[in-house]
């Protein structure tokens, strides 16, 4: 299925969970947060939350800043 990750079209297997997507994208272990359709999903829910086709994800990480 197709997803949008940070506005970029991304392919993931049907029924993919957020945890599986995080693994597929090789996201860092820490300092990362994910929102699905503008709602932040806690890491504790990543294993259960199944993504739907055309879901739009925002994935952020730490950056330098004042």
């Amino acid at each position, binding site marked *: 299925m197709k997803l949008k990750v940070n506005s*970029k079209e991304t392919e993931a297997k049907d029924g993919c969970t957020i945890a599986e997507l995080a693994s597929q994208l090789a996201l860092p272990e820490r300092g990362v*947060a994910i*929102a699905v359709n503008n709602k*932040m999903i806690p890491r504790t829910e990543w294993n259960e939350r199944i993504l739907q086709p055309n879901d739009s994800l925002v994935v*952020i*990480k*730490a950056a*330098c*800043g*004042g």
Partner: protein
Amino acid sequence: MKKLIIAGQEFDSRLFLGTGKFHSNTTMEEAILASGCEMVTVAMKRIELDDKEDDMLKHIIHPHIRLLPNTSGVRTAEEAVFAAQMAREAFGTNWLKLEIHPDPRYLLPDSTETLKATEELVKLGFVVLPYCQADPTLCKRLEEAGAATVMPLAAPIGTNKGLQTRDFLRIIIEQSSVPVVVDAGIGAPSHAAEAMEMGADACLVNTAIAVARNPVEMATAFKEAVIAGRRAYEAGLGIVGQNLIASASSPLTSFLD
């Protein structure tokens, strides 16, 4: 020196560091450690999927350092609440430097949205440290809304212009019941020392250290300036004379006659 207390948390250092603009993460880490600071800001950005850059977090995570995520990049209170929730998840802290500056040219904080966001975020359990205009009335409103500190600007971000808002900072310091952290525009250790002598509770410095020829030495200079300024404040500065007439500090009795 008295310890700084924010939301019940004690700090020995009254200098906070920003992590932007350093030419390398290694230099940033060395500067953070040299500064003796116990709180550093961290921003957030969208991950690029083919991103292979260095993990900046490994350079700022130390046992004595608290992370202070900021909301830089948001333009409204609604966006700030979303960013705050992302930050709490990413960094495991409910402390937040709230900054809402919709205008990229001057980066001046939007007071209306900052107050609105502070009210909402406090209700959601965040420890909110809002970056704000040096507006004494606004600072009282933020305090009433539950802000843990106020962080009025000395001058626009990154300008190194020093305490352009000096007179308003004095009023804010006089009136505030929460710690006053002077943020933005501090460009030299003397600026930080002056803010501390005035009674500011802490200073947040980024650009002045990050872009110095030797950031680590500059971090040390700021550390010493903040300590000197605070010590002077606690020791009680002498009264500034109102005219040009001198006041002798040595006996005026003649001894050559």
